[in-house]
């Protein structure tokens, strides 16, 4: 046993030589790799709704993202590195969403994930991002981030959430339109946020919700839902998403025929739809929430003017190249602002690669005030590092002569509510 046979001895030697050879051979590769770390682009995985019920939003989220990345790259990129967008269609489908996040982390080698809008896709994808420890910047409006439902790797620094939006709307609705409200909303997470938080908020104003009417987001015909609207309704609160929003609003007009309650809608019901479409004349004098005003307002800031030009949107919120292609203007600024937050966060963290992902999260959590600027053309904002949610101004517009004219802009304070979670207490 203790005498080595010649064959064995040479075997060990051969193995040793082989290992040494591999090490030697890989040396130049290592050197090339470490050099690439600084010059290679920062890869941002863009989870985009190219198909499915979110397609109209996806098209404009894509255009806004490309415009923001172009601006960032022209300004020298992030930490001197160019930004590269790796776009993947999730079909507006939660299951596919989780797979896309997985692809970003393991196949494309993305630094972060970004850009998801529809709340059910966010809720389906975020747990996987958390497991993979992939920073996941959503542009969704859902309350699921600030509610504590998700995880420390999911952040929403570029768009406000439904809870803060509706809380800021309720005083205006109760004071100017009426206190007996009937709500029509899509039957999934996003619509449920509207249902829960607006009902609370209007009750706090001494009002009440007479009926909740939930409609599946894939529905194509709506008149059959409207008879459930009680006759003593003073305000009809409507918010709808999906490919059939134009049908929804048109049938609403045909249903009431010039009579009926005052209308207060979230512009979601008309995103990507021209407000002067045939059949929508009845919307004149009705009110809409807008995250950012589609029609150019007289006091538009220089930043917003530059933003409109960069994205290619005209003064009525439609594409410069095709006036029939109306933008999802009230939401898509979220992509632009989120990308600028990512840039600021990566620069503050001295981000060099995936090993710095935790530092990036901490750097974004440390942000507080985000002043109005070219990076934040919608207005100044306050970021809450504990709840991972940003807060900002909200707009109420009235349809006047076929244009959306802003009649009220809330303060940021109107939109604040007590923290429901402290993500910074979770491990990274």
């Amino acid at each position, binding site marked *: 046993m203790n005498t080595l046979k010649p064959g064995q001895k040479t075997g060990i030697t051969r193995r040793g030589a082989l290992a040494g050879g591999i090490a030697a051979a890989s040396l130049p590769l290592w050197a090339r790799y470490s050099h690439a770390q600084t010059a290679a682009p920062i890869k941002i995985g863009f989870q985009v709704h190219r198909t499915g019920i979110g397609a109209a939003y996806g098209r404009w989220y894509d255009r806004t993202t490309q415009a923001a990345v172009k601006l960032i790259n022209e300004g020298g990129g992030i930490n001197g590195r160019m930004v590269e967008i790796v776009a993947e269609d999730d079909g507006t489908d939660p299951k596919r969403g989780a797979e896309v996040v997985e692809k970003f982390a393991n196949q494309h080698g993305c630094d972060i994930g970004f850009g998801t809008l529809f709340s059910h896709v966010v809720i389906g994808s975020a747990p996987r991002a958390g497991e993979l420890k992939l920073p996941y910047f959503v542009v969704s409006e859902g309350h699921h981030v600030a509610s504590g439902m998700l995880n420390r790797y999911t952040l929403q620094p570029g768009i406000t959430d439904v809870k803060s939006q509706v809380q800021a709307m309720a005083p205006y609705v109760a004071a100017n339109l009426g206190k007996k409200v009937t709500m029509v909303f899509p039957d999934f997470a996003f619509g449920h946020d509207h249902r829960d938080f607006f009902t609370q908020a209007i009750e706090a104003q001494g009002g009440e919700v007479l009926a909740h009417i939930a409609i599946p987001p894939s529905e194509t*015909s709506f008149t059959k839902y409207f008879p459930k609207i009680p*006759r003593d309704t003073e305000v009809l609160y409507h918010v709808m998403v999906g490919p059939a929003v134009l049908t929804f609003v048109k049938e609403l007009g045909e249903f009431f025929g010039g009579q009926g309650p005052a209308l207060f809608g979230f512009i979601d019901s008309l995103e990507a739809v021209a407000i002067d479409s045939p059949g929508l004349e009845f919307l004149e004098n009705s009110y809409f929430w807008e995250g950012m005003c589609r029609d150019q307002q007289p006091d538009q800031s220089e930043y917003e003017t530059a933003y409109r030009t960069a994205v290619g949107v005209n003064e009525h919120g439609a594409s410069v190249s095709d006036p029939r292609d109306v933008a999802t203007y009230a939401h898509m600024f979220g992509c632009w602002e989120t990308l600028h937050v990512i840039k600021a966060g990566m620069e503050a963290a001295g981000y060099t690669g995936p090993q710095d992902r935790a530092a990036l999260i901490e750097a974004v959590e440390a942000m507080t005030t985000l002043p109005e600027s070219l990076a934040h053309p919608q207005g100044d904002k306050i970021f809450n590092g504990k709840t991972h949610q940003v807060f900002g101004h909200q707009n109420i517009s009235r349809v006047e002569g076929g244009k959306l004219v802003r009649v009220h802009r809330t303060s940021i304070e109107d939109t604040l509510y007590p923290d429901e979670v402290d993500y910074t207490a979770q491990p990274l």
Partner: protein
Amino acid sequence: MELGPYLVLATLEGAVTAAVLALTAVGLSLVFGVMRVVNIAHGEFFMLGAVLAWWIAQSVVEHPAIGFALALVAAPLIVGALAVAADMTILKRLDYDPERTIVATIGLLYIIQQVTLMGYGPDARPVEAPFNTRLALPWFEHGAEGWQMIWPWGLGTTSYKLAVIGAAVALLCAVWALMARTRIGLVMRATQADREMALAFGIPVERVYAGVFGLGAALAALAGVLIVPIQQAHYLMGADPLLLSFIVVIIGGLGSLPGTVLAAVLIGLSDGIISVFFSPTLAKILATLLVGLVLVFRPQGLFGARGA
């Protein structure tokens, strides 16, 4: 809303559903009756009709009614021609074998759907109705001063919706006349009754098959054109009509035209009324339950002459 106006509105909505459904389902029933082909791609012909209507309407710059009228004629013809081509290149080569044609039409479904997605895009696009006036309906209420006529909000329909119902009735009558009163219909019925014998009598069965497949697809496309000013064209819009058409055809009896029409009215109206009073989900549940019951207790359907 009060019960009376509520019911009137539900019936009107249901009648529109029934009208469009009847047209689509008759196409499916015809194809099955004559050719014994279960056409899974039928809903996509419906969708193609709607998408082509958008394409034709937006390329005609004059009054929207002209574009729509053109679409009403051209879209079914294009879709019909496409279906004839599909029949001659695919179904004929499979010898109309029942199992293999099912698989082939599933393939056709995906090809049509994905090509539409690539060419037309994922957006829903509207087509302007040629005319669309809201018609408010009165209601009678017994108040302090006896019977009064009131105009409650919500109770109304549009002239276009009524026209859709009218057009569907006219088209169904035309299909019936074609089947029962013309030589073409006679040939089709002969082929349906006994393929071998028809062949022996010199009927060009293969050409009849191609024609029937084209006619079935054209009827679905026509239904798509009629619905598009109400619903908008979208590449996924074929799924619902397919499911409902199968429900209707199974309840009515595969291959039976009167049965199909009756079942379409039944399903359309009950869908409208149950959706309005309870929920659209319940309407679908009940329709599917009815299919189950029909299959168990009367497999040939309400009007089916033979076991299918």
